[in-house]
């Protein structure tokens, strides 16, 4: 049960029995995976708070590529994203992409505000300077 939910959430490429697409969608999916991984690396390695936030943004954007690519290549059978409008199948993917963008924008705004607020507390801009939330 959990497995099914997780699949549905994290792996848009997996509908009930595969995707119907035209043309070659996999390069784009690969690009998205690559972007995500590289962003993840940067997020784990760099110490500057702002760069960290930017890397997280890149990770979020990579998911947008996936949605948009799936929409473009005529992906039907998208599961929960499948809601069709006449003449525009799979448009839910774009809507979802837009929502993710909005969420990412909101998140980075708040994130940067936190960075600035933290800086006031302690004039250090590296993330490993803040260890005070220990239990």
């Amino acid at each position, binding site marked *: 049960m959990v497995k099914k939910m997780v699949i549905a959430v994290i792996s848009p490429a997996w509908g009930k029995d595969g*995707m119907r697409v035209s043309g070659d969608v996999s390069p784009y999916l690969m*690009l998205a995976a690559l972007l995500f991984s590289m*962003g993840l690396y940067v997020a784990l390695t760099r110490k500057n708070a*702002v760069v960290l936030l930017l890397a997280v943004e*890149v990770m979020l954007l990579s998911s947008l590529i996936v949605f*948009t690519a799936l*929409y473009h*290549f005529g992906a039907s059978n998208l599961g929960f994203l499948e809601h069709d409008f006449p003449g525009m199948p799979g448009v839910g993917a774009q809507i979802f992409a*837009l929502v993710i963008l909005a969420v990412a924008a909101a998140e980075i705004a708040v994130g940067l505000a936190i960075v600035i607020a933290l*800086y006031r507390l302690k004039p250090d801009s590296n993330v490993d300077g803040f260890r005070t939330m220990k239990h």
Partner: protein
Amino acid sequence: MESIIVFFSLAFVTLLGLVMLMAFSRVLHMIFSATLTFIGLAAIFFVLGAPFLGVVQIIVYVGAVTILAVFSIMLTRHDTVDPTEKSLNLKKIAALIPPIGFFAVMYLAIARTPLFMSGSPQPPLSGKALGEVLFSPMYVLSFELMGVLLLGALIAAVFLAKE
């Protein structure tokens, strides 16, 4: 044929941005490399038939996020050079595991996914059409919630950042 050229050039630009992000030592350079990535991404959106999304991407990321990042950098005293740079230490090697692992998993997933070639490519979704969809009873609620979310983010950001 040309779509391959287009794809590779855009992908190259995007990844170049990320690679430069990893390569540079000065934080400001890193931010602008990220901007390059954003631009490449916006181009990809345009190619993939989401012009509205591409425009929003440019406005929000290249425009707002970049500026925000630059301002944050300017407001916080930063070491111009990120200290972890020169040393190849355990942390960096250990940090390679999740990205490589993730990518490996994804690669296998994508390669093995049965993708039937029977759909048809979608035309680019114009802003007008997107608007009509967005305001339909199906999605208008999410639209409104997005607005509330952005409002909340705005209030929170202001509240956090003020004296």
